[in-house]
């Protein structure tokens, strides 16, 4: 019985990224063929931007949302050094929107073709998006149920003192108890906020807490758009009347006829269309619910080996730093210690030095490059030193293993040396 009126709040803001400068890119496993296209990369961004505007105003919606999903996801897949949970979230929402009639009300499409215009859509159309948001928060909360976060207040205990020069509240961050209070509130917040937003009686106050919480994280940590995206997304939990008021206001402002926003029509799917959507969405949510738990299949510590870490709504959980040196030895006896800056950008090197899949991809890149440049059929050895959440650093990769011969797969990577510690919990 509610309206879908949200897509328009989305647009804009993701055009600025640069995918042209770096020499090499880290593709996602299974999607390595997705690469930036040199200067044509700008065209993808333009497609993405135009599609975003079209979706927002609801013009040529079906084509536009399809193009938006593809172009945005393509951009996301080009280089995993820039992977962020909220890009992934945006991709998922766009995927859902492909199957929803978001253009059927208060859109240019509906204005041009009156037969499309409907005032009501089935409740579940909104619920699927709410459900995705709920999963995001709930899983982010579950991920915080571990000993580093709850018992040691890590990594906030490290990050907060770095902000102790902030006006007004800075001095608070010199106290350990501040970090503990932050982690407990953060955990309870994530676990409960999805339900609190869903419930009509707690909605307003929980939305206020969304604003405060995300605003605080936005000023404390360099996490970009995420807080703002969540602030806007959470609006979908508000009642039909709330959105109706906004729309009525816009309608008057745009001087459109009142019938445009009040036509009493209800949207109905064809029987096949409905079945098709139920099938797709069931599969989608089934995977959404199990993917974050795939780490359980891997023997190593999740935060350490990061097998099954991405796509799981794990945010702000780790302070991880690393230092990686590669030695390449050719068949002809020639050997060299690689200078990483010849191949990678600062960001890429930072990501590479703590994440095994990057390390392996980079080792293969070095193997192929040096094979062509005077070191035939080389062996590649990595000396990697990583520190996790305040633990003293330790050797990360078995330095005796020739990474040139190791293959990427979903099976556990036995060349990662185990962490000399245990993190309990999820």
């Amino acid at each position, binding site marked *: 019985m509610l309206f879908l009126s949200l897509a328009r709040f989305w647009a804009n803001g993701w055009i600025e990224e640069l995918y042209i400068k770096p020499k090499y890119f880290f593709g996602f496993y299974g999607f390595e063929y997705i690469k930036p296209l040199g200067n044509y990369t700008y065209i993808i961004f333009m497609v993405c931007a135009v599609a975003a505007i079209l979706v927002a105003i609801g013009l040529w919606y079906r084509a536009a949302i399809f193009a938006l999903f593809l172009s945005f996801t393509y951009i996301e897949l080009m280089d995993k050094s820039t992977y962020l949970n909220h890009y992934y979230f945006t991709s998922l929402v766009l995927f859902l929107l492909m199957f929803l009639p978001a253009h059927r009300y208060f859109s240019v499409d509906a204005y041009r073709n009156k037969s499309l215009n409907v005032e009501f859509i089935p409740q579940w159309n909104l*619920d699927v998006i*709410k*459900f995705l948001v*709920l999963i995001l928060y709930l899983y982010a909360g579950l991920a915080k149920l571990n000993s580093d976060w709850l018992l040691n207040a890590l990594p906030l205990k*490290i*990050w907060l*003192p*770095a*902000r*102790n*020069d902030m006006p007004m509240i800075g*001095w*608070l961050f*010199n*106290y350990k108890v501040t970090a503990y*209070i932050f982690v407990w*509130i953060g955990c*309870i*917040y994530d676990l*409960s906020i999805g*339900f*609190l937003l*869903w*419930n009509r*009686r*707690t909605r307003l*106050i*929980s939305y206020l*807490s969304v604003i405060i919480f995300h605003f605080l994280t936005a000023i404390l940590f*360099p996490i970009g758009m995420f807080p703002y995206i969540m602030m806007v997304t959470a609006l979908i939990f508000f009642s039909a009347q709330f959105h109706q008021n906004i729309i009525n206001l816009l309608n008057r402002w745009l001087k459109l006829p009142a019938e445009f926003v009040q036509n009493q029509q209800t949207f109905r799917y064809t029987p096949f269309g409905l079945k098709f959507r139920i099938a797709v969405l069931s599969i989608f949510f089934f995977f959404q619910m199990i993917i974050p738990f795939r780490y359980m299949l891997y023997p190593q510590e999740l935060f350490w080996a990061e097998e099954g870490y991405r796509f799981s709504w794990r945010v702000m959980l780790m*302070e*991880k*730093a*690393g*230092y990686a*040196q590669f*030695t390449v*030895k050719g068949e002809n*006896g*020639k*050997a*060299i*210690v*690689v*200078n*990483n*800056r010849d191949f*990678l950008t*600062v960001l890429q*090197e*930072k990501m590479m030095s703590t994440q095994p899949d990057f390390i392996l991809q980079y080792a293969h890149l070095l193997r192929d490059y040096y094979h062509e440049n005077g070191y035939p059929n080389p062996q590649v050895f990595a000396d990697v*030193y*990583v*520190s996790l959440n*305040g*633990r*003293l*650093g330790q050797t990360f990769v078995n330095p005796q293993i020739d990474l040139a011969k190791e293959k990427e797969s979903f099976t556990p990577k036995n060349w990662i040396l185990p962490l*000399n*510690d245990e993190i309990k919990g999820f």
Partner: protein
Amino acid sequence: MKLLSASPLKYTLVGIILVVTVFACSKSVENPTKNNTNETDRKALLSNLSDQIILPAYTDFKIQFDDMLAKADAFTLNPNTTNLIAFRASWRVAYINWQKVEMFDFGPAQTYAIRAHFNIYPTNVSTIENNIASGNTNLEVPASYAAQGFPAIDYLINGIGVNDTEIVAAYTTATDAAKKINYLKRITNQMSNVFNQVLTAWKGDFATTFKSKTAIDAGSSTSTLINGYILNFERYIRAGKIGIPAGSMTPGNKFPEKVEALYTKDLALTLAKTAQTASYDFFLGKSYQNQTIGYSIKSYLDALNVKDATSGKLLSEIITQQFEVINAKLNGLQNNLYSEVNNNNSKMIDTYNEMQKLVRLLKVDMTSAMSITITYTDNDGD
């Protein structure tokens, strides 16, 4: 999805708000200046480092450097053996003291690229010869960096002839003697200009700006300072002075001719030790003048209570110990690193390996504990 009813949730929320309020109130009665809070005050840290170490070090270097410039002038005005020996002695003192300021690789030093004009080695003899011949090559471009500074002077006053008589002859009786004198003047002037720009900036507004930028994000004082400090240790002490000549970056190939101060056979180790000690003292926060200990990277780490979780040992102690291990390794080397690489390279490699361990501690453990991002990509020297 209505798994929970409204009322318990409401109470949870009220509970959270209550906790926050209680916390906020209880905080305000505590005394915020007690015990360790001062030690994480980055303004105090930055003030001590700039007032007690950086500025005194630059000011002191200026004295030896000016003396070297005066001796250089005397030599170019009247190239004879006495003036050559005086110039050489003064150059040596200045070069040693340069090692105490090279690590301040941020702010004005970076803006004016002082290292590029002072200490890029191995010096490129053929570029020097070309520059001498042309007489007006641009010294500001990267292609000229390896043909100026202390290493170029080293060649010009130590390497250009087999003995003092030959060297003096190069500036008196040789056909291009005037051109060589001209080049010596040009590169010493260049050093003088660059250094004065850096010192003027520090004595002007920069010190104030430096102390006021107390944040810790990229571009803040603490971050740029630490980045420059670690870069200097990793690339210019570990790799430049020891690793590259010893062939640590190129297993199976060593390059003794890449040692610092190549033409003055007995100086390289002294330079390395001086740089190492300066880095160590900077970490400890030792005043340049009177050796008293003030706010430092070490005291900052201790205030954050950074420890190895398993042994309970302070990170600052682990770092201190590693500095000592390296000192011991350096003490086991002969003054002439050129011959050490040729005859005793395993000791050089040993030293490099211990320095490598310190790089890890500084670059990974220390920065991570301080929440500083490494913003340079120089992983290894070339």
